[in-house]
């Protein structure tokens, strides 16, 4: 209850502001469509139920969401669930790639001194590239190379999301204090043993915050990668089609679906973290 109440308050505030914005945003359109003798109350009322509003009202978005989720079988391209699954699959594969790359880079950076100097600038440079801006181009290029479907999207998603994983892991793998490391030395542990029994477990608390940042980024990457080439499936395709045809309701429904997927992804990371914590006595 203590968690639900603040959440409900925020939700109510957002809905109020949203409703308040709908009337002025759609006023011109509603007035143009209104009869000559229409009162201002009628126009205001009409702003809430336009076919292609500039800003749809909350109930319109809700209706569109329910209609596009429940109205069609999930295998139909008209179903929003179908598109959500397509995007989520690409994001998940991208996230797994980011995890593998992020951890591998961190291990290299921490263990090989020359890699620290050689790799880190490139890792940072890769994040300075405006992936979102060039993603369409990358997807087109990959398409020409024969890479279509899920993989190019996953690559963009991975590119966009590996950085927080790398930085978190670098910090985590370096977190053991000198005493904890000296202890391993008194056992004459091999570097591999030191990694497995000290550095790796010590890095876990640093990995999960990185994963929590990376998960929504992977989703953004997958959606952006769907924008070009007139992809027929995925939330990105829905957004694009919606803006082509002025279907604002469809755009907003897709945006909400993306937000729900992001929440689900972060919740999944939280769950994985909870499992890890329970095996460590609930701390760290």
């Amino acid at each position, binding site marked *: 209850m203590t968690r639900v109440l603040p959440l409900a308050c925020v939700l109510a505030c957002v809905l109020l502001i949203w409703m308040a914005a709908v009337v002025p945003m759609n006023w011109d359109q509603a007035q143009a469509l209104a009869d000559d003798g229409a009162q201002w109350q009628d126009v205001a009322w009409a702003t809430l139920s336009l076919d292609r509003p500039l800003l749809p009202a909350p109930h319109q978005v809700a209706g569109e969401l329910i209609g596009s989720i429940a109205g069609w079988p999930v295998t139909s391209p008209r179903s929003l669930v179908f598109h959500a699954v397509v995007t989520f699959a690409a994001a998940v594969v991208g996230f797994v790639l980011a995890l593998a790359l992020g951890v591998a880079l961190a291990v290299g950076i921490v263990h090989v001194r020359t890699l620290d100097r050689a790799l880190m600038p490139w890792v940072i440079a890769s994040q300075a590239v405006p992936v979102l801006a060039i993603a369409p181009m990358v997807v087109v290029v990959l398409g020409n190379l024969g890479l279509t479907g899920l993989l190019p999207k996953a690559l963009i998603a991975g590119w966009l999301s590996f950085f927080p994983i790398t930085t978190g892991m670098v910090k985590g793998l370096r977190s053991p*204090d000198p005493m904890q490391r*000296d202890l391993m030395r*008194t056992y004459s542990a091999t570097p591999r043993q030191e990694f497995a*029994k000290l550095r790796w*477990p010590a890095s876990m608390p640093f990995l999960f915050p990185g994963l929590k940042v990376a998960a929504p980024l992977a989703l953004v990457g997958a959606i952006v990668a769907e924008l070009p080439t007139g992809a027929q499936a995925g939330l990105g395709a829905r957004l694009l089609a919606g803006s082509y045809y002025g279907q604002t309701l469809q755009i907003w429904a897709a945006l909400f679906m993306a937000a729900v997927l992001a929440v689900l992804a972060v919740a999944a990371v939280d769950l994985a973290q909870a499992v890890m914590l329970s095996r*460590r006595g609930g*701390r760290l």
Partner: protein
Amino acid sequence: MPADIVVEAHGLGVTFEADGQRTVALTDVSLAIRAGEFVSLIGPSGCGKTTLLRLIADLEQPGAGRLLVNGTTPEQARLQLAYGYVFQAPALYPWRNVTRNVTLPLEVMGMDRAQRQARAARVLDLVGLTEFRRRFPWQLSGGMQQRVSIARALSFEPGLLLMDEPFGALDEITRDGLTLHLHALWRRTGLTAVFVTHSIPEAVYLSTRIVVMSPRPGRVVEVIDCDLPAERTLDLRDTPAFIAVAHRVREALRAGHSYD
């Protein structure tokens, strides 16, 4: 060299260089520790006690002199797991429970699981922590954590136990309890122990010999025999014999200072 000499040092010297500043941590330290002895290193902080212990453990390299552990180089001794090291802080791995902290060195050695469990049970009994074996470090008091750390150092049955102010961060009541405990443990196991402290009563109570060191550069001022009865209780600290040894240690510490 007699077979029962565990640590033998000749003219050891260590100089640290940090930020262009040279610190002479130890000069001309010579020392022989026999099997089964309990030797305390006592001196003001910064006099190189930790450094000397780390030299024996092969965690630090001498700049001068010769050091033998079990008749071999410190490195050989380390590779043979000749010693268990107890650090100033417990240095437990917080993601492992008590038992798994104690079995850590055994895992590194490649001992099988059943044997590890048996060893852990035995050393945890030795330090009186059997009922806390499933707890995690943060669920234990400082004194209990340090006992886990001692159990961990004993788990692979080294002949030599190196302890660096293991009770330094604890309150006096806990310290007294642990001092008693450590003495009983040493008597039962027949270990050779090198124990760093800056507490005179602690050193006198526990030791067979006390090595008094002076600060900057760290030198051995005097080695004092501590021939109190083998059976020791806390009441011993009020006896004339105990007070006499403590007095000698204090005098030696003062002499060390006057060299400055």
